């Protein structure tokens, strides 16, 4: 049913249509609206499910591990510090091959504590063995959950649906919430691969030593490679059933014959697409490549999307998370992906890649800044690594302070002091 609806609410109602049997939640901004809505649906009887209010994210993930191993379809949601706090259990769920589905309402990680959006949280778990899908819109966020349950249960592997905190979770948008029969038709009842059952007792979670651990990890990687096949199939099936393009591995936009392609994940893609349209109007042949699946990393799909023959001369990767001391997380993976399966670089030669760190801790990514930066890129003046809208004066002032005095005090607080002295930030 088509609605004007808050992103969190859209996800909650869609998850409910997936009939999870056990839901665990611990509140953390900006995930709260999702679990509040689900909690209400359970309380008023619209959703027949066990809703556990646990005492921490660590418990939340642990409880869904137990429930999933007992044969229940399970769901939880978190963000930021919460994701890090449950990290040990996040790895464990994947190691045990349990098809848990979790929403991550992407948010920065402190210190300094920051409740606003970026991808630092999800990226910190990129090697936990979870499949990671990034939503561009509320609609896609909702749709991806339906696909996630199917994917997770077919592979016996957990799936993380990442949606930008506030930008998607708190934004009211038009979204089509599928009806129950449609979802039931698309998502069959969960058939567990392994289950705790007195009638057929097994021990789950054995200690595995050097004699088999490598093989276990190898098999985990194989599941990811299997996912590379399944994700497009499921997206296609979804399109057939619901008539919407949601999910898949990558989403190209005006890449055909493009000289400059912007690579990004999540909701920033919308703003980027608007900007690219402006660039086209300016006569710059720009395009966009959105990555919906970051784990598994769709190397092959990316190469195909960029075209095997004609390759864009320039790639600009928008990083919503920073790897201090290294730079861009997505960039590094993309660089590796551009070589073909045998590691040979493309005959047409590889493009020049620039990394642009943007939108950390909720800083708005504006068309204005993007347009400026990409125009520069088109004219070859964009450095290999840069920040979008970095307030250099603030940073420099603090650097000076540090150089000046040993006891310069906490940087974040210093910068805030400077800020209050100067003009208000971009958010007014």
């Amino acid at each position: 049913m088509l609605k004007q609806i808050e992103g969190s609410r859209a996800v909650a109602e869609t998850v409910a249509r997936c009939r999870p049997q056990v839901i665990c939640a611990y509140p953390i901004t900006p995930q709260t609206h999702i679990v509040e809505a689900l909690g209400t649906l359970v309380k008023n009887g619209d959703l027949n499910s066990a809703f556990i209010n646990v005492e921490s994210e660590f418990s939340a993930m642990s409880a869904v591990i137990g429930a999933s191993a007992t044969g229940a379809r399970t769901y939880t949601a978190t963000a930021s510090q919460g994701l890090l706090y449950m990290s040990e259990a996040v790895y464990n769920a994947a190691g045990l091959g349990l098809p848990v589905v979790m929403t991550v309402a992407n948010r920065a990680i402190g210190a300094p504590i920051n409740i606003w959006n970026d991808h630092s949280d999800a990226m910190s778990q990129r090697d936990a063995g979870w499949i990671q899908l990034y939503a561009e819109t509320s609609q896609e966020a909702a749709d991806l959950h339906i696909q996630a349950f199917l994917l997770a249960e077919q592979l016996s592997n957990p799936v993380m649906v990442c949606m930008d905190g506030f930008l998607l979770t708190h934004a009211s948008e038009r979204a089509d919430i599928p009806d129950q029969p449609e979802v039931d038709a698309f998502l069959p009842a969960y058939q567990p691969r392994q289950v705790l059952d007195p009638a057929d007792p097994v021990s789950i979670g054995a200690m595995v030593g050097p004699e088999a651990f490598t093989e276990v990890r190898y098999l985990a990687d194989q599941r990811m490679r299997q996912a590379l096949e399944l994700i497009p199939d499921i997206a296609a099936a979804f399109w057939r059933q619901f008539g919407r393009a949601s999910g898949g591995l990558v989403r190209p936009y005006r890449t055909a014959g493009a000289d400059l392609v912007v690579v990004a994940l999540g909701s920033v893609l919308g703003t980027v697409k608007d900007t690219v349209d402006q660039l086209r109007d300016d006569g710059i042949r720009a395009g966009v490549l959105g990555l919906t699946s970051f784990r598994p990393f769709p190397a092959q799909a990316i190469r195909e999307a960029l075209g095997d023959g004609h390759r864009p001369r320039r790639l600009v990767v928008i990083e919503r998370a920073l790897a201090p001391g290294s730079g861009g997380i997505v960039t590094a993976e993309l660089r590796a992906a551009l070589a073909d399966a045998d590691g040979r670089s493309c005959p047409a030669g590889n493009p020049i890649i620039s990394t642009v760190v943007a939108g950390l801790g909720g800083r708005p990514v504006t068309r204005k800044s993007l347009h400026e930066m990409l125009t520069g890129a088109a004219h070859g003046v964009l450095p290999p690594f840069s920040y979008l809208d970095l307030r250099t004066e603030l940073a420099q002032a603090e650097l000076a302070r540090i150089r000046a005095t040993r006891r310069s005090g906490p940087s974040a607080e210093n910068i805030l002091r400077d800020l209050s002295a100067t003009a208000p930030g971009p958010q007014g």
Partner: protein
Amino acid sequence: MDKPFAITLDPGSSRANHTGAWRTERPVYGSFLPPCNNACPAGENIQQWLYDAEEGGAEAYQAAWRQIMADNPFPAVMGRVCYRPCETACNRAQLDTAVGINSVERFLGDQAVAQGWQLYPGGTTPRTPRCAPGNETPVAAALTREAGRGGGREVLVVGAGPSGLAAAYHLTRLGHAVTVRDAGSQPGGMMRYGIPRYRLARDILDAEIDRILALGVTLELNTTVTGILDVLTEQAGGHAAPGEGFDAAFIAVGAHIGKRAYIPAGDSAKIMDAVALLHRVEDGTAPMLGRRVAVYGGGNTAMDAARTARRLGAAEAVVVYRRTRDRMPAHDIEVTEALEEGVTMRWLSTVAHAEAGSLTIEKMRLDDSGFPQPTGEFEELSADCLVLALGQDADLAVLDGVPGVTFSGGTVDVGPDLMTGHPGIFAGGDMVPAERTVTVAVGHGKQAARAIDAWLRQASAEAPPRRALAGYDSLNPWYYADAPAAVRPKLDAARRAGTFDEVTGGLNGSTALFEARRCLSCGNCFGCDNCYGSCPDNAIVKLDAGHYVIDYDYCKGCGICAAECPCGAIAMVPEES
């Protein structure tokens, strides 16, 4: 289900891992000698019959009784007159109080009499080992040979006392034809003529003797045996007419000649000896003793005489003894009961002179060596009669002049197999050097029977290897509930003087069962499952109650089973390297 590799495993698959390889010591079920069995002069397997009795019910009681009967044909008598060395040795005494073995034995014996249990048909079956072989008593082993009485020979038993009758009993069951000859008019010897009725009811005694005779023992009463060699065959070193004589003889005529001591006495002084007194009471020809009776001596017979005197109507019965109570040979229980019945004691006193109606008593004192010395102080003690209870001598006439037979200190010299210096002639009971109790005598009977049987078969009595003693330290007593002993009812002291009724009563069904179940089963498995339950490696397999097997594939040798065995029936032994 198609499980994830390595992470998920099939149940119980660790059985493939044989942890027994870790072991340096292995637990082994053993069977150790319980102190009660060790102390029993009659060699009863007390622990086994208590174990049998613990089950409760007629069937269990009969099984227990048969176990006693394997060693001792007088359970009911024992339950009355035995001085209970077993209870003195009982480990339970260190926990709370000793198990009332004697009272349970009496209960079982009385049950047998009341129910008229017979040995045949059926016969006793040897004990089956529960955990490990080696528990059978030699007698039980012999009983298994019982089948063919064919190899049987002729054996003469002289004396129908406890020792003789016990020998006859065992020899018969070993397949020999036994003839018992006794000078007296009734069988039982000292059991009848030495122990008063109030300690041993005669119907009980008769019943147990009859049961022995019922086995086919020939009893010839009022027959004094003289010239023993004339009745023995040549093989036994005798010269009886061919086909007439006996192949072996067991002499157990006891000791019932009262010791006389010279006591200056006036002509009209009334003096008699205790053995004769008790004998006459038994014959129903009790003498007139008068109002005041003095008994001279400090043994059990002295007590019997004094207590009997009270029952014959003596207003006063005074025991005159030259030492002190703690040096009295009489068993404490006898002294106590005597005092309860109003018998008075004169310690450190000797009779210097006897006159009609009065005695002259000389006070004594104990020297450093504890020997009584005269003090020269005298006093009068009015007494109508003086009964001498200064011990008994054996009448050894029956062995006079038998070649090879030697004597010392008024007793017959015998070897460890109770054979005298003359081949084929054995002796036991009060006439050989030993403690003079019914139980010891019964033990001699069994021992002699075994030895005679072996001698007749030109074999040597198989002396079983002595098992290690199961001391208190080998137990883990925490597992035993606190359970104070059940006491036997006693006849009210005031009512005793007038009657020869039994002073001590028996236990009833439940108190006897309670008492039997107080046994700690020292050194022998009683099927408590502790080993099975407490093995951290599930390495002990329980076949059925009380039957276990150790699975050495998994036993790591930690030793918990041995440490937690309540009765110390498991030993840890080093692995052969």
